[in-house]
């Protein structure tokens, strides 16, 4: 009985404290909260679905398939183990599409795959520029010695990390044009390097993390400001090549 009285009193106090808000306003706000929460829940969910299913609209936006890939895709047998999904037959995608403008405006339309699905090898970009006087200059970004503070280094690291798969091939051309301008050079070569991770045993065997054998060239482009058109994709080289860092 005493407990019941206490509960009633507490509920009464709560109601009193909320008294300043009209019930109708509370209802409207509640609906707005639910829609917002649905949006911030569906955005990472959609990002995960896109990763798993490679939704055509997302893929087209983020990566232009090469001619070889297009041929391979058209010849491939449809994957019946994963039925096609779309806004027409998926409630969460339908609602996400309705909320997408709001999520984009507020920068909420993204996933939270930090070091997921697996922490992978790093991607670096090594470039060699040739100046008008014939001299050459070679560097790699990101470079912890040149980019300080750490946040600045990380921004450059993200540039190289997103240069493959995430950004369109035109981004590599843009990087090249930017570096040509910065170094006042006439010609540039960019190489996309994958820095392979060592196993515990390899480290225990004394192999350093920056051993030359751990760097593999995934792709390369070269040219001057006018002729940078080739996409920076793995297909540009026939096979990975081990290089000196």
């Amino acid at each position, binding site marked *: 009985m005493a407990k019941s009285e206490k509960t009633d009193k507490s509920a009464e106090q709560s109601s009193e404290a909320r008294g300043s808000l009209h019930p109708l306003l*509370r209802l409207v706000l509640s609906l707005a*909260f639910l829609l917002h929460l649905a949006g911030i829940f569906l955005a990472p969910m959609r990002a995960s679905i896109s990763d798993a299913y490679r939704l055509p609209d997302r893929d087209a*936006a983020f990566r232009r398939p090469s001619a070889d890939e297009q041929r391979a895709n058209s010849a491939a047998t449809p994957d019946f183990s994963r039925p096609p999904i779309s806004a027409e037959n998926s409630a969460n995608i339908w609602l996400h599409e309705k909320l997408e403008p709001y999520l984009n405006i507020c920068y909420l339309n993204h996933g939270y795959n930090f070091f997921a699905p697996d922490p992978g090898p790093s991607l*670096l970009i090594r470039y060699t520029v040739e100046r008008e006087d014939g001299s050459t200059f070679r560097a790699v970004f990101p470079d912890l010695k040149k980019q300080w503070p750490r*946040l*600045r280094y990380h*921004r450059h690291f993200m540039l190289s990390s997103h240069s493959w798969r995430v*950004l369109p091939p035109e981004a590599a051309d843009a990087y090249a044009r930017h570096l040509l301008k910065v170094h006042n050079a006439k010609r540039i070569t960019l190489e996309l390097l994958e820095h392979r991770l060592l196993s515990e045993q390899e480290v225990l065997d004394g192999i350093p993390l920056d051993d030359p054998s751990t760097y593999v060239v995934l792709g390369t482009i070269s040219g001057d400001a006018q002729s940078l058109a080739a996409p920076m994709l793995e297909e540009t080289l026939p096979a990975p090549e081990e290089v000196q860092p």
Partner: protein
Amino acid sequence: MNLVRIPRDYLTSLVRAWNDFWFQPSDPAVLAAIRICAGAMLFYTHLVWSLDLQAFFGADGWLPRDVVRLAQGEAHTTMWSYFKLDLIAENPAVLWMVHIAALVVFFCLAIGLFSRTMSVLAFAAAVAYVNRIPPGAYFGLDKANCMLAMYLMLGPCGARFSIDRWWKKKRAAEPLPDPPPSVGATVAIRMIQLHMCIIYLFGGLGKLQGWAWWDGSALWMAFANLEYQSFDMTWLARFPRFLGFVTHVTVFWEVFYIVLVWHRLWRPLILLSAVVVHGGIALSMGMITFGLAMLIGNMAFLTPEFVNSVFDPIVERIKPREA
């Protein structure tokens, strides 16, 4: 009779709990503390952009606007940013003016000068920066920064620990009482809490899509990544079982954060784990800003009493002295 009463009582309790969760006014101390930390983080994050402003936001930088438009696809139209305008992107002087204005806004937010107005401007500015660069130079820090800036707008973030409060006290004829509890503060804090839960849930679920978080090798893969390394942790190669254990604990912590952080007894342990996880990432993998931004988000689960006990003495010590 019970068939009617039981569901009715349940629904009544449900509505009451919902109302208490969202609309019970609370002390704005926690929101004000988050304002200081998030404002400082926003200021620092954007101050660092100053070192490469033209290269990242100018017309001929790393990511020209046409490449960003192509990369963002259909979303480009709604991913608004004033840095996409010709007037700003193609005029270095205007670009710098806009940038300095944003830095002033972030600084004012941190110190609590015109806090509410600055919180709205800070959110708009933070989104303008971040919508210009992805998918390129962005990462988790930007997501946390914008999330915090957004929710600071919802409540009286300058009601405590601020220049606004100090000014109000100075002008008042009598000593001011503590700021009143606020529904806006509750809504803002609840939103940060729920958003943090969603971030960790999907962070954990995303990890479960990979094999390295299942077989326990993920932490090693992170430590063996030279580009992330700030301290050499490869000596842990001698302790693979320990690495596997910590890998699994990390995933469990992320996946179950959404449940355990609401429990009175688990909450301190979960928040302490956040300090260990993000502190560890910050120190060993060089992601100090990201780690701190996530810890600022976790502050939403602190009690006003605890926040007051920490911030009141600090504010008392640094507040401007009377002449």
